[in-house]
């Protein structure tokens, strides 16, 4: 793009600046990895391949891996200096998502533990 002068430009998410063959390959590899991760999730959920109490953790790990695949191969988010803005925005989004979800689960778990439950009958 800029030859050898090492001038960094911002990059937009979703844009990959290569020739067509490389781009089609990127989408195809992404689709393949995504399908593998999905299939693995379904296998983990339906069999005892993983130690059952740990299966939930395994599912979360597979989901995070698949989200990573989507970000890199479909949204073309890279780790280069041109992507800094996009990655920083993503990091902030992930922080808020984590706070909202983990915070809610944490608070309500304590609420349930400290509240006398109604007798079930």
């Amino acid at each position, binding site marked *: 793009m800029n030859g050898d002068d090492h001038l960094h430009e911002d990059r937009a998410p979703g844009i990959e600046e290569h020739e067509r063959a490389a781009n089609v390959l990127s989408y195809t590899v992404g689709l393949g990895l995504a399908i593998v991760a999905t299939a693995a999730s379904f296998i983990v959920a339906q069999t005892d391949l993983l130690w059952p109490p740990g299966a*939930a953790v395994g599912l979360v790990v597979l989901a995070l891996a698949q989200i990573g695949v989507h970000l890199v191969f479909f*949204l073309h988010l890279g780790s280069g200096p041109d992507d800094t803005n*996009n990655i920083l925005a993503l990091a902030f989004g992930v922080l808020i998502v984590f706070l*909202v979800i983990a915070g809610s689960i944490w608070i309500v778990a304590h609420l349930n533990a400290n509240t006398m439950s109604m007798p079930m009958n």
Partner: protein
Amino acid sequence: MTTVTAEADQRAHGRESHGGPAPTRIVVAYGFWIFILSDIVMFSALFAAYAVLSGNTAGGPTGAELFNLRSVFILTVCLLLSSYTCGLMMLSAGEGSLERFAVFAVLTFLLGAAFLVIELSEFADMVRKGAGPSRSAFLSAFFTLVGMHGAHVATGLLWLLFMTAQVAAKGLRPKVLRRLLCYSLFWHALDIVWIGVMTLVYLMGVQR
């Protein structure tokens, strides 16, 4: 042509002043990326509500009794394939190939529509079994979260119709290409939300 010279000007200018305004395409996509992240933050609230309420079935049916993993797998494959064809559609648009763009746009629309039809028939089936959104807190949270994702898919399908009409009417000019770029970001982001729904709601729901 004009855009290319403008970008080259900005580039040459930026070399002296360390930056300066980025090309419109970069600014537009970055702004839309911020919107997508805020949309995902909105989804995180619904995910949190579901995670907190998923055990409160009020004596009604549980996820393990209701969910059919075979159709969830089909839904996932539809969405993944439509993301793939959406990516190929963007490549064709970038090359200015109208025929290939049209083919991939139709494929993307059909796969997205298949997703929506299967999901709605699953919903109708649940309501018929007496497991509608008013049955329990678990089902309210379920229909809100999954329904919100479905509403986004429906919006994406409408948007794709508008974009195809724009390409037909105006051709693949830079402004239309920027809108297409935003559309593709939106469509790929729906996949990411669906991975969360698939894992947290369906796969973990069946385990309980």
